[in-house]
């Protein structure tokens, strides 16, 4: 049914969907390990390194990936955002093919905050056993600022994630736009996506190449 090309068209490429759900799982796991504390701190750090790799892939994919994965396709534009919100309250916002203007803003905010969260962690030292790879290389005041960011940005991330989930559930359940299903299958209805708007494929080989390059670069930093 999902492969019925006449009623459904591909919008979200496979690498983007994998990134999305891997980021969701990794972020959840790293939040939980942070809450558990010292005993699982090693896993928390590994999750952070892994997520920096994920985000690096996403940044490259935002430049060279298929249409709706590109940052240019959902770069926040205040005019569009205001129009979208106004129409949404009237109940008649046009369904977007990729991210809607509010969703695009959310994606940018989440990516930036999660990146800040992960990178600041590289400078944190727990004064006991575990220290980020750059904790002892930065000046004390800089490491202190990074530590403050690391212990506070998560609260903003949690608020945004709650808003993101609430919006997606609202559009999926009450407005029947099937956004969650679209992020799983990549498909949206042909009523929303015209034949010209559909992406031609997932560029899997390009994605694999990027993953290899990013992974090589990450391992060469020898954080682990």
């Amino acid at each position, binding site marked *: 049914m999902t492969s019925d090309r006449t009623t459904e068209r591909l919008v979200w490429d496979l690498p983007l969907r994998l990134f999305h759900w891997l980021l969701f799982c990794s972020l959840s796991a790293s939040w939980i390990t942070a809450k558990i504390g010292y005993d699982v701190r090693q896993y928390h750090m590994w999750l952070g390194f892994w997520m920096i790799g994920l985000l690096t892939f996403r940044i490259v994919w935002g430049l060279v990936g298929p249409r709706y994965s590109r940052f240019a396709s959902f770069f926040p534009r205040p005019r569009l955002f205001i129009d979208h919100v106004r129409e949404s309250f009237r109940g008649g916002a046009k369904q977007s093919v990729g991210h809607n203007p509010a969703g695009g803003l959310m994606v940018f905010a989440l990516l930036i905050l999660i990146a800040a969260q992960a990178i600041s962690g590289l400078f944190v030292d727990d004064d006991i056993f575990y220290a980020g790879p750059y904790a002892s290389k930065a000046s004390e005041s800089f490491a202190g*600022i990074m530590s403050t960011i690391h212990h506070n940005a998560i609260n903003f991330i949690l608020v945004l994630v709650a808003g993101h989930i609430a919006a997606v559930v609202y559009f999926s359940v009450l407005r029947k736009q099937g956004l969650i299903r679209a992020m799983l299958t990549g498909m949206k209805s042909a009523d929303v996506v015209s034949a010209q708007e559909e992406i031609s494929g997932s560029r899997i080989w390009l994605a694999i190449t990027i993953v290899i390059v990013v992974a090589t670069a990450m391992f060469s930093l020898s954080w682990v």
Partner: protein
Amino acid sequence: MSDGNPVRREISATLITLSGAARMKKSYRLVAFLTLPVFFGCGGSEQTAASDAAPTAAQQVAAEPISAPEIDRASQRAAEVRQSVLKLISNNFGPMRNMARKEAPFDAPVVRKNSLRLHQLSLMMADAFATDTRGSDVVTEALDVIWETPEAFAGKIEALTTAAGALAESAASADEASILAAVGELGQKCGSCHDDFRQDD
């Protein structure tokens, strides 16, 4: 190394300016530092006045409750003492942590010496935290829950003492692996207490 790089210094200076929290903390420290001698000066003269003549009953009744600056002075002092104990613990644990992380060669005499010190320092912890500084305006990472659940906190101290004792005992042997395992065990006691009783900065 980092201080030699003007660009990096510039960046961190900008970030400090941008970060209101860091600035406030700094200014707090500055104010505390500048006013400390004043407080000590007052304390000295008060003490002399008090010891000159025993207060009469009437004077005692009329005596005002302890004034706010005096409470703050006691809290400030208490915070300094407990932070000093923890700094010494950190200082003595540091070399062993580096050994356990294979960042420094194993050095049995250092482990023996430092583990005995840690054992002693752990015995000072209860006294160091005896003064309840809840509600005072001292800059501290000590959470209120320390004084809200004293039994739980005492349990953490006991675990630390036990682990430090076990390490000191282990350090008397020549078994490097088991000594380093005991270092890890001791670090775990530090971490599990920080999880519950120390604020993340």
